[in-house]
């Protein structure tokens, strides 16, 4: 059979959503469950659960990769804060309280993608193309591999959970103790 492959027009958000729903196992592995196809957060991302029961937020934009990334980061922060409730609402997460992961998809990788990947171990970046194969629309996804330095670091150092990031951030903004306060809390 002869294949006729050509590029197709850029889809709108809902067309892309439909195609991504069919490609969830490609995004977060075999055994992925779809929890929500449309969260009413910025960018209306999807929520999946991977085989290891991590919630996976899929943030996507047909064109604007920066918006997809920013919406995704914002969504992950909300997920971290709401982790107990997410685990309670979605039984398929089995109350494991696993830290969320983020998948960002756009037509191009966002600027500074390699640096962002290096800093966020729970992040996966994809770019997509829409193809017409013998008249059928198909989605082609290209994964951005993490930089080699990051891979080496993962082998030698324990991986930092994505859920730890907001906690650290919140601790960063806590006001320091004065000398008097420190002395006061030295002993019970």
């Amino acid at each position: 059979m002869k294949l006729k492959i050509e590029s197709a027009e850029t889809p709108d958000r809902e067309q892309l959503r439909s195609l991504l729903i069919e490609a969830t196992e490609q995004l977060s592995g075999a055994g992925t469950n779809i929890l929500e196809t449309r969260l009413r957060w910025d960018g209306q991302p999807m929520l999946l659960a991977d085989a290891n029961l991590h919630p996976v937020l899929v943030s996507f934009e047909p064109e604007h990769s920066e918006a997809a990334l920013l919406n995704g980061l914002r969504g992950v922060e909300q997920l971290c804060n709401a982790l107990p409730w997410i685990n309670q609402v979605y039984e398929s997460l089995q109350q494991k309280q696993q830290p969320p992961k983020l998948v960002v998809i756009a037509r191009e990788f966002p600027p500074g993608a390699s640096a962002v990947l290096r800093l966020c171990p729970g992040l996966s970046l994809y770019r997509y193309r829409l193809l017409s194969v013998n008249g059928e629309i198909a989605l082609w996804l290209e994964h951005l591999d993490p930089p080699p330095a990051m891979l080496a670091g993962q082998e030698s150092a324990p991986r930092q959970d994505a859920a730890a990031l907001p906690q650290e951030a919140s601790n960063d903004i806590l006001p320091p103790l004065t000398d008097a306060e420190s002395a006061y809390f030295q002993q019970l």
Partner: protein
Amino acid sequence: MVSRLNPAWQRKSTSSSRLAQISARFLGTTQAATHGDDVCRAIPFLLDTPEQHWITDELGQILTQRGHPCTLCSPSEANPIEHSFRQAQAAEPPGSDAYCLLAVACPATLLKYGVDHVVLLVPASLGGIRDAYQRIKLLSQHGAPDIGIVLVGPRDQHAAWRYFRKLAVGTLRYLDVPLLNLGFLPEQIGPGQDAEASHRHNFLARISERLLRSGFYSTLTMTTPRRNA
């Protein structure tokens, strides 16, 4: 006559900025709920770790059993995800006795909400109360909400009181923030221990009683439809 009070108990003199804060809180304009929003009585909890969610889960169940239909809310303003403890009441609008429990682990999230009441779940350890003090310090710099304390994991009532007193004296002395003692959960009880269920229930019931009796809640608007499990 010279005051004989322990210096730790002496409050800072009321400053004009403090008065301004109080004035703004009680006399300021309140944000009106927009059309389609649910106005609800929310009890915000600041968890020390996400693992403490079992406490708010079970408190919600107890409040529901006591005739106060209770939902759990996520901290997202844009799309609160709520879980009803009683599916049979899922379709009912929030009544005057209804509450929603809002639990977060990050103080910055609560600051975004501008809540005026916060319950802190504080581990019974020196490090735990020091961390709680820092969180209270942060909260007091942004709106000065009323703060209730639940000690988690003290050996007994006396230990709970010692930890609470240490924290309360510190916040009163350095921050001029009084704390409300809402109770404690002793170290013997925890999630998933069926043998201790009634024991746990008793302690949580006491906390819920104090929450209700003191009217410890914030009024928030929820902008999205409720979600039922």
